């Protein structure tokens, strides 16, 4: 069976911004504030963090933060012999530390996520330089960290931005009127803060900041090297401590940015691992990374913003300052940093399968989304994942053979708006889109009952423009392309309708369409059988409102159009006639050859059809439908003469091979004899639609005929036994 789309599931649990200056990598920003614990946005949900009480015991807490490096399952081990001795001393000596609660609380440093210190995580998420612009994927248990790291080039194209960055970052901060104390910020930047020196033990972050400030880049690198080895051996507690310190101090505002990596943390179901990661990577991770890279190259954006975020979050790591609650912090961050705002936006939208609008700078904005399926063509079996409430149709999977545009935007389609026009227009006005004006004009002219072609003619908007505007609306999930609704078409209750929503939908329906039959009644009428929609409409006056109902039903996916598809059927007498004709034309020997030709190799018959598609399996239209191999398996012995005369279907009349095309011309002649010239010419025009892929409902539009005429013709042909019709979606 065909591959079914799966329900949208972004599996996104966090987005982290990892940057690396010349010293250590560091997670500058992450969203949501407590990833993995709480997926909801931050607004006022974090009173449980105990942020308020942290000020009272802040001194011991920050000491713990250095001491508690090995803190997961081997915590007791670490306490026994391998934690830094000085930390242990203070730890045991500190009365506030006695309770396990305070330890636990301490672990929840604002930037420690997934129970890991952000320093360690940042190290893990900072790949080697050979990962530049490559997919970065690291898994920790069920969490997968997916990124697209970008490194500064060796010639340092970002270096020239370094000078301007300082000024720009500061000017940006002043321009945006930073809420936090700008003095402190600047003081920190220049490394002249007096408090730094005396806070060596109690304020790990600032302590090493100051140290790192004093050391120039080379020395810092040395420190980090020492710390790396020491960490691995766990034998040098002092270096251990320094390691932790050096790491947290990473985003020096006066050091050039070397790498940044926006890491998306996913928790995919094991069986959908590759699918979900690919979706996220292709649609979001890579595109966002590229946008950031461009902005960084243009205006040093990432470096600037990470410096800003760092300056705003710095006080969270210090012990002295009164720590605001996480929600206040994030509120400030989002208000002041456009990158933080962008990431927040991105997370909130992508995690709920919506389109994310991210504007990084006033000049650049981008929209990202993981596309969601708008329709399915096959009904999922009970064994497959169910997608109730998705539009069931094959209109979108038709090969575009005569419409040059994308299949569903052919001129014979139209748009079904998924929300009402006023709301779309008001959104347009809010977004100040450059195409707002033509869009508004189009929206006013749009109707689900008129094709693009008709709308274009009535409104005076050129057809390509109409299609462009339509595709725009489709991309933004505001509309869906459908064949125009018509009261003579057949609509059935969609087998994929979400029955669980029936109760809610029927009350919504009753509000929208009062004084009309309730929704269950309408659906019940629609399920009586395959009847045209107009049989439901009680009177002519009711027609507009009933067409509105139909549009509503289509939009909510309660119904789907039952479309008619046809195949050419070759009746026995035609076959017989053709056989006789060929027998008289050819010698006996050649008849034999024809038969073998047809049974062996019908798809690429070399006789007179030069354009037969080699890849397409055209096995049906042959005189002897039993191929030699399959006949050995059949339980019933077949009489070949009976077989050649039993009627069969021609699957693709356009590309019919030798024998089927002889059959087709014989049928055409037969129609001429029985129904006259008009019918024959119509047949010759229409036969290309009888391949089971073109809906008969489109013939009147394509050929510009009246529906009645087509219906009469088709009925006539069906009576002749040369046409087989099937109805499906």
């Amino acid at each position, binding site marked *: 069976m065909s591959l079914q789309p799966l329900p949208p599931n972004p599996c996104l649990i966090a987005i982290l911004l990892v940057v690396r200056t010349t010293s250590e990598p560091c997670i500058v920003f992450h969203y949501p504030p407590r990833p993995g614990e709480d997926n909801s946005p931050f607004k006022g949900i974090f009173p449980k963090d105990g942020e308020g009480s942290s000020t009272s015991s802040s001194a011991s807490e920050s000491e713990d933060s250095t001491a508690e490096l090995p803190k997961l399952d081997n915590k007791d081990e670490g306490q026994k012999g391998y934690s830094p001795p000085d930390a242990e001393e203070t730890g045991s000596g500190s009365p506030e530390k006695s309770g396990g609660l305070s330890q636990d609380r301490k672990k929840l440093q604002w930037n420690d996520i997934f129970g890991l210190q952000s320093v360690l995580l940042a190290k893990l998420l900072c790949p080697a330089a050979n990962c530049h612009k490559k997919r970065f994927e690291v898994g*920790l248990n069920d969490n997968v960290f997916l990124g697209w790291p970008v490194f500064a080039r060796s010639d340092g194209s970002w270096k020239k931005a370094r000078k301007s960055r300082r000024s720009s970052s500061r000017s940006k901060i002043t321009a945006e009127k930073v809420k936090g104390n700008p003095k402190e910020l600047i003081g920190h930047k220049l490394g002249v803060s007096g408090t730094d020196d005396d806070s060596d033990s109690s304020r790990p972050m600032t302590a090493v900041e100051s140290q790192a400030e004093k050391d120039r880049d080379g020395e810092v690198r040395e420190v980090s090297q020492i710390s790396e080895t020491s960490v691995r051996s766990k034998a040098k507690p002092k270096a251990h401590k320094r390691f932790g310190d050096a790491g947290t101090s990473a985003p020096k505002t006066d050091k050039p940015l070397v790498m940044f990596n926006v890491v998306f943390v996913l928790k995919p179901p094991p069986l959908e691992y590759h699918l979900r990661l690919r979706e996220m990577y292709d649609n979001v991770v890579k595109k966002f990374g590229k946008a950031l890279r461009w902005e960084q190259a243009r205006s040093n954006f990432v470096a600037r913003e990470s410096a800003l975020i760092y300056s705003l979050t710095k006080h969270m790591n210090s012990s002295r300052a009164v720590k605001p609650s996480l929600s206040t912090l994030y509120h400030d961050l989002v208000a002041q940093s456009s990158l933080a705002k962008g990431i927040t936006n991105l997370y909130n939208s992508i995690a709920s399968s919506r389109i994310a609008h991210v504007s990084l700078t006033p000049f650049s904005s981008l929209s990202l989304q993981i596309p969601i399926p708008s329709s399915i063509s096959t009904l999922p079996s009970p064994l497959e994942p169910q997608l109730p409430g998705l539009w069931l149709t094959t209109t979108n999977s038709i090969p575009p053979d005569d419409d040059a545009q994308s299949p569903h935007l052919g001129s014979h389609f139209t748009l079904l708006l998924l929300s009402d026009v006023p709301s779309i227009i008001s959104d347009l006005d809010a977004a100040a889109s450059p195409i707002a004006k033509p869009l508004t004009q189009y929206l006013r002219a749009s109707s689900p009952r008129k094709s693009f072609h008709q709308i274009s003619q009535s409104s005076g908007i050129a057809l390509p423009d109409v299609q462009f505007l339509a595709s725009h609306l489709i991309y933004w999930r505001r509309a869906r392309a459908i064949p125009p609704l018509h009261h003579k078409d057949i609509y059935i209750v969609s087998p994929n309708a979400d029955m669980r929503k029936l109760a809610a939908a029927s009350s919504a329906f009753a509000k929208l369409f009062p004084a009309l039959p*309730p929704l269950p009644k309408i659906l019940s009428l629609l*399920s009586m059988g395959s009847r045209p929609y107009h049989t439901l409409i009680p009177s002519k006056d009711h027609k507009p409102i009933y067409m509105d109902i139909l549009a509503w039903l289509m939009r909510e996916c309660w119904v789907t159009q039952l479309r008619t598809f046809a195949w050419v059927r070759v009746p026995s007498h035609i076959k017989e006639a053709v056989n006789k004709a060929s027998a008289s034309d050819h010698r006996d020997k050649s008849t034999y050859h024809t038969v073998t030709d047809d049974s062996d190799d019908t798809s690429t018959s070399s006789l007179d059809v030069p354009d037969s598609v080699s890849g397409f399996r055209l096995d049906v239209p042959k005189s002897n439908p039993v191929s030699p191999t399959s006949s050995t398996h059949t339980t*019933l012995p077949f009489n070949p003469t009976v077989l050649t005369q039993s009627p069969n279907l021609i*699957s693709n009349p356009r590309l019919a091979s030798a024998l089927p095309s002889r059959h087709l011309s014989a049928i055409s002649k037969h129609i001429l004899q029985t129904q006259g010239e008009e019918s024959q010419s119509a047949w010759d025009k229409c036969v290309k639609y009888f391949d089971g*892929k073109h809906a008969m409902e489109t013939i009147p539009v394509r050929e510009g005929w009246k529906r009645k005429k087509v219906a009469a013709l088709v009925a006539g042909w069906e009576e002749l036994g040369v046409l087989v019709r099937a109805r*499906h979606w």
Partner: protein
Amino acid sequence: MLKAIFLAIFDVDEGPKVLHQVPASSINTSPSPSTSSIPLLHFPPIANTLIPHPTLCNNGLLQLAISHHRILSYPQCIEHPAYPRNAYTFNFCLVLPADADFTSYIPVTRKLNTLFRTLEVHSHFLSSDPSPPNTGKVYALCETLLEDLNNYSEAMIPIDASNTLNIKLFPTYPPPPPLHPHHVPLATVNLPSLIDSNWDLTMLLILPHINGINSVKQIALLADADYKLVKKSLRHLLYYGCILLLDIFSFSAIYACTAEISHLIESPETQQECHRYVLLPPDSNSNSSNNNENTKPTHPPTPSPTDLPTLYLSLRQGLPVRAWLLELPHLATQLDLRRFFTFGVIKGFLYRVHKYAFATKKQQSRRMKWVREESDSGGGSGSGTSGGAKGKEDADKRRGMKEGDRELERFLDGTHCFDEICTELMISEKELGQRLKTRGDVQIICR
């Protein structure tokens, strides 16, 4: 398919390094990335990830996708004063293609690493192994493991006198879909041939009744087994793909074509397959089949494979099988109709149009009416025409109906199909239709 297994350790002098690797030279450990394409991986850039900070050790799976390969690892760090720098860090890593399904290798990685952790803790198995890189028993073990897992998907490797490494790869399947009492399981394999002595008793009880005709509930009744256990057993079979789920076949059911019907029309193989499956053995000697008591050998010729699509195409929404059959009466003698429909459903070109009932008004007023009527009839005691006994029977019946109605009520929210209601209430569809009619205010929706 495993590409390589390697053991990375933290060397006190050299830092992270690859101690053993299978196949040899699959990991490039030199500081400069090699130009040749033979090694799978370049180790130094990922060394710090695979031998991470102790916090990240003993912390579960650590996997890494790099240059078209995926490394599954489970870093272990044993802290003990006996070691230089007081700790020993190692990590057995499995290398797979990046896009391969790796879920079944996760337990392997875990087991390999935790086993060696235990061995190391107890007997310094790894740290005291003097063999140089790519020799010795650990290397041999990795070698055997790689070969066995790739060739046999399992391995049993003795390590020492008391330890053996037993590993088997288990594929991961999606969780089975929800199973409802009205689902009809159909075996896709010859289940009785798979039975062994360890099979569950309920499973053995229900196996004879899985025939594509009985619904889950019927199976439970026929096998005289607890429904919950039956459901559990069937879900097991479902999980391993041994059964399919069909619908209850009846002559009042409606079937219609899906878009997949074009596949049948365009594929003579499918037509042949269908023909073999649905056709009854040619007349007279067909006592064994179900539907031919009234076989008439003089009927129109049996449908050929090319006729079958036309037959399927003549099905449509709103047309029950019974009515369809009236148009083509001879078919019942030539085709196994149940197979005719199940073939379509299995192949996906046919779908069952289910009926749903939705109560537009709550039953409350209705029930009151029932109660009132009942009290009326009780007060009137028989209403003349029938005897007292008959009246009592009526009342009983009515009470039963009322009970049934109350039960029925919860199925009238539009989410339960007729099959389900009938199975749950153990009534026929005809009776259900009558009950719904007497109840009133019910819309029947075919979906």
